[in-house]
């Protein structure tokens, strides 16, 4: 394992990007940080800038307006980084499949910038906080 990957896995700082979500997934992400789940005890911390982040938590379907912004955020995130597609919309556009404003799903938008991006999928509408923690654990175990 390269030293970059091993240092990435120690304490993941995450940046949250909403690309047109209905806010339900975002509420569940906030739920992760509350004392009930308290992911900060694992070193997972929400940060205010993608330049400080090791991982992007992307919610939402990937709208035409949000896609270039998401790509810019991904470019600014130091590599290596991990992208978590949170929720049914981000994983595969969900009920918005084929709608006029959709260019997603999120993995397609990210791979336009970086074909080798590391992307994890946490499906659900919205995914439970336990599912997100499980997704992070699975991602870390395969890195």
């Amino acid at each position, binding site marked *: 394992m390269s030293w970059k990957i091993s240092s990435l896995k120690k304490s993941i700082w995450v940046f949250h990007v909403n690309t047109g979500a209905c806010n339900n997934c975002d509420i569940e992400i906030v739920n992760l940080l509350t004392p009930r789940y308290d992911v900060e005890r694992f070193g997972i911390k929400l940060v205010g800038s993608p330049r400080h982040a090791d991982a992007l938590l992307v919610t939402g379907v990937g709208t*035409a307006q949000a896609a270039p912004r998401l790509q810019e955020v991904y470019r600014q995130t130091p590599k290596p980084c991990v992208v978590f597609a949170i929720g049914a919309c981000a994983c595969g556009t969900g009920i918005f499949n084929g709608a006029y*404003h959709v260019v997603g799903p999120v993995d397609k938008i990210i791979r336009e910038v970086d074909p080798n991006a590391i992307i994890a999928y946490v499906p659900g509408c919205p995914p439970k906080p336990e599912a997100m923690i499980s997704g992070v654990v699975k991602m870390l175990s395969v890195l």
Partner: protein
Amino acid sequence: MNQEELNNKLSQIRDKLIGAEHKSDSRIYLLCEAENSYAVNKFLFEDVPLRFLIATGIDSEDCFEVLYHFSNDETGCVVTVKAFIRDRENPAIESITPFLPGAEWIEREIHDILGIEIKNHPNMRRLILADNWPEGVYPLRKEVKK
């Protein structure tokens, strides 16, 4: 204002309407042509008075409809003004934003996605479509290909 007073008030604008449907005591539809919608809405908002909830735009193939929903909070009755826009080529309706600022954004949204011109709107800029969306394409019109 109880139901009886509301019905009495609504009967005062009967000449502006082309019909009224009392689905139940909590749901009333007032049907009118687009030219009269401004007067009807102004009457409901200022003279009855009712609280404005939201507006809805519909493409019903032979015409456009704009539905203005008002609530009588005391009884929970929702009064909907259904305005028909018969001209499909240049659909237009009078803005209610001058006396009802809460309707500004929903009117901009109706203009964005259905292409209904909102006359005398104070701030008609694009609201919800993407910046690179082409002008003159209205995504929720029936003729737009999926």
